[in-house]
């Protein structure tokens, strides 16, 4: 990861910007949404590998900033939702895309129950937190 940041530094113009967008490991809530109503159904569980990747990314950024390659100018977070109309669609998506997290069976069962209770208007979503940080390339760097 540090090598990638070094490459980012190289291809950026002086004073260029880096935006780091990343989901935070947090066992994101699974929610059934019916109109304005949001019903908690369980949590998607982050595996150890995902959490380790998060820590490694943070360490790489800290190392790049500590080495004077970049200066951090902004750090914040926002909520990011992914929706499905049916539980089956969510299951397929999860199987194909979630390599470092999983949805426990009890969350599927509760989602199924809530969706059945609330009819065709109900959607299921995963409600994640995304971190956004902005860095600026330093003009001069004595460490490269």
């Amino acid at each position, binding site marked *: 990861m540090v090598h990638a940041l070094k490459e980012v530094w190289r*291809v950026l*113009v002086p004073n260029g910007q880096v935006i780091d967008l990343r989901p935070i490991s947090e066992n994101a809530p699974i929610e059934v949404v019916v109109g304005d109503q949001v019903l908690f159904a369980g949590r998607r569980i982050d595996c150890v590998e995902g959490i380790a990747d998060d820590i490694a990314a943070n360490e790489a950024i800290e190392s790049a900033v500590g080495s004077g390659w970049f200066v951090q100018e902004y750090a914040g977070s926002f909520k990011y939702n992914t929706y499905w109309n049916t539980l089956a669609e969510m299951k397929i998506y999860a199987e194909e895309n979630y390599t470092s997290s999983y949805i426990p069976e009890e969350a599927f069962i509760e989602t199924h129950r809530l969706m059945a209770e609330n009819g065709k208007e109900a959607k299921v979503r995963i409600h994640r937190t995304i971190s956004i940080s902005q860095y600026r390339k330093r003009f001069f760097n004595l460490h490269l």
Partner: protein
Amino acid sequence: MPTEHDPEQTEIKYLQDTANLAKAHVLEIGCGEGRLTWRYAEVARYVVGIDLKPKQLTVASQECPPALRSTVAFSLANAETLPFPRESFDLVILAWSL
């Protein structure tokens, strides 16, 4: 639509508030199928999206809107050995890729 990502468009709102996208030369690392790319590319001067997954890049290229074909390109590349000269980009977006 089986999967709907961020219909509230929160991600692009934060990106626009944080990054200087207007007329910028942008490198997006981890562009995938172009989910985020399409949301900002029209204000940038030029966008190169890179990813390690050829299938996703194929989808991105196929789904590139005609109006963006002259200003958006996709490439199979590794962030640790970027195939670009030094000082090529105003902005690098690490899109869920670090």
